[in-house]
C-alpha cells in the first residue's frame, strides 16, 4: 500500500490566529494526508524537531502576525542543517507580497494568501512534494 503523505501544519511565535491553520489541517486530513498540527505558540526549534521525528513530507506554516519574516526562515535553516532539505515548505495567511518574495528566496515553495482555495492548496502540495 502506498504510504500516506505526511504534513505538519505549524503556527510559530506569538501568533494565536489559528482559524486558518485548523481549516487547512482538516482539509489535508479529508484529502487523505497524515496530519500533525503543532498548535499555537511554537518555537522554530520545536517545530523542526517535530518535523524530523514525524518524518514529514510537507511543512505548512500559517502566519497572521508579524514574525513570519524572522521565524519561517529560521525554521527552514534548522531543517536544512539537519539534512531535511527535501521537505516541501508552504506558507499561508496574511503575508504581504514583499515578504512573500523574501520567504520564497528562503525556500518556501508557495505562499497562499487570504481567500485561497483549499483544493488548490491540496493539489499544489500533491504536485510539488519531493519525498515519498
Amino acid at each position: 500500500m502506498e504510504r500516506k503523505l505526511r504534513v505538519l501544519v505549524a503556527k510559530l511565535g506569538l501568533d494565536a490566529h489559528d482559524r486558518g491553520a485548523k481549516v487547512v489541517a482538516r482539509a489535508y486530513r479529508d484529502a487523505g494526508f497524515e496530519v500533525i498540527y503543532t498548535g499555537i505558540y511554537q518555537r522554530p526549534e520545536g517545530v523542526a524537531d517535530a518535523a524530523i521525528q514525524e518524518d514529514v513530507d510537507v511543512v505548512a506554516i500559517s502566519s497572521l502576525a508579524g514574525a513570519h519574516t524572522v521565524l519561517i526562515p529560521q525554521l527552514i535553516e534548522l531543517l536544512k542543517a539537519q539534512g531535511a532539505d527535501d521537505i516541501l515548505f508552504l506558507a499561508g495567511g496574511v503575508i504581504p507580497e514583499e515578504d512573500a518574495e523574501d520567504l520564497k528566496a528562503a525556500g518556501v515553495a508557495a505562499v497562499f494568501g487570504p481567500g485561497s482555495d483549499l483544493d488548490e492548496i491540496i493539489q499544489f502540495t500533491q504536485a510539488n512534494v519531493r519525498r515519498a
Partner: protein
Amino acid sequence: MANERERKERFAGVSDRPVQRVYGPEDLSGWDPERDLGEPGQYPFTRGIHGTMYRGRLWTMRQFAGFGSAEETNARFKFLLQQGQTGLSVAFDMPTLLGYDSDHPYAAGEVGKLGVAIDSLKDFEVLMDGIPLGQVSTSMTINPPASIMLAMYLAVAEQQGVPWSQVQGTIQNDILKDYIAQKTYIYPPEPSLRVITDVMTFAAKHVPKWNTISISGYHIREAGATAAQELAFTLADGCCYVEAAMKAGLDVDEFAPRLSFFFDVHNDFFEEIAKFRAARRLWARLMREKYGAKDPRSWMLRTHAQTAGVSLTAQQPVNNTIRVALQALAAVLGGTQSLHTNSYDEALALPTEEAVKIALRTQQIIAEESGVANVVDPLAGSYYVESLTNQLEQEALAYFDKIESMGGVVKAIERNLFQREIADSAYRFQRRQMSGDYKVVGVNAYADSDEQINTQILRVDKAVQRRQIDRIASVKASRDGARAAGALAELHRASQTSENLMPYIIECVKAYCTEGEICGVWRELWGEYREESVY
C-alpha cells in the same frame, strides 16, 4: 407555476440557517409584544437600553488603533480625536498581550507589529501624553495583563491630576473567550478568574465608571462561530463571571452594571440586528430571573460592536468599504453603544491613516445622513426580524442547556465543546465558499482574473524593537531598584493569599516594574495554560 420558481433550492446566510421566502403573523405565534418587546429603555430591553437611543446621544465612534511604539500610537490617537472620534481604543502588540517585554527572545519580530508595545509605565506615559484622561474614555483590548494596563492608566490619571472616580473606559479582561477562541491566555482558568474578580471588586469601589470586563463574542465569531454560537457562548461566559463574583462575596448589583459586551457584526444583515436584540432580552432575563439583580442597570446589556474582520477580502480590497458600511448599519439598527468600523485594507495589513479615515467617515455618514439614528429600534414588529430574534434566543438557550449539562463553562472548555463547535463551523463555512454555495464578491464570484494585489499598506518600522529594548534598559537603570524589587516581592506574597491584588499591581507599576516582570511573578506561581488543539 413558472413564476414561482426560485434561483436556489435553499436560501441561507453566513450562519447557514435556512430562511423562508416570506414571514408573516404565523411565524410569531406565542410572541407577546408586551412581554418580549417592551418599551425602549425598559425591561427586557429588546428595543434598546435607552428610551431615546440615538436621539439622546449617538453611539461612541471608537476606532481600535495601535502600532509601533507609544509615540506613533499617540500621534494616531490625536489624529483620530481631531477627526471627530469620541473615544480611544488601544490595540497592543502580541508580546504585550502575552505578558512578554520587548526584550524577551520570544518577542523577536513581533514588537509593535499588531499593536503598540507597552513594557512599563514609561511607555504608557508617552501613549497618553497630551490626552486628557478626565475627558476621553479609553478601551483597552487586553486580557491576562488587563489588570496591569488598568493600573498604568490609573497611574497616568494620577499624574494628570484626574481623580480615579472620573476616569472612564473598558478593559477586555475576558479570559474565558481566550480559552475558547482568541487564545491569548497565559495562566490556567482558576488564578485567571481570581485576578478578574479582584479587578471587578477594586473598580467597583475606586473606579466606578470603569467597565471591568468586556465579555466578548467578537473573537468567537471571527474564529468561525455562527451568530447563534457567538450569542450563546458569550452570554454563557457572562454568566460564569457573574457566578465567580457572587461566589467571591459580591452582591450582584454591586458589579453587574459595569459588565459590558462586545459583539461582531457580520454580513447577514437581519440576523445581526436580531442577534443584538436577542442578546439584550436574554441578558435582562438572566440577570433578573436567574441572578436576582434588582438594579435595572444590572439588567442592561451594553455593548460595543466591531465589523467582521473575517469578511474582508484581500481581493478587490476597496469593496470592503461597502461590506463595512452594511455591517455598521446593522450594528446601529441593532442598537449598539459603540462601534468600530474596519478599514478596507485590513485583510492585507494594519490600516493606513487614509483607510482609517474612510472607516470613521462611514459611521459619520450613517449617523448624520442616513436618517436611521432618528428613530428608536425601527425594525421592531417586522415578522422576519422578530422571528429571527426569537429563533436566536431559542438556539442560545439550547446551548446553555448543553453547557450546563457538561458542568459549566470551565468544564466545557476543558472538554473542548466550544473549540470543536467553532472549528466545525469554520470548516463548514470554508467548504460552502469552495463549493460556491456562499458567494464572496471578488473571491469566488466576480473575480478579476488578472488582479494584482498591490494596495499601499502600512509597514511597521523595524527599529521599534531596538528602541523598546533601549527604553527598558534605561527604565531599569533609572528606577529605584529597591522599590521595584520590594513591589514585586509583595505581589508574589499577596498572590498566594486571597488579598485583592490590584493595590499591589498599582505599586509595581508606579515603581516602574515592567509588564514582563509582573507577569513573570504569576507565570512562576501559577504556571502556563496549554491547550489540546482540536480541528
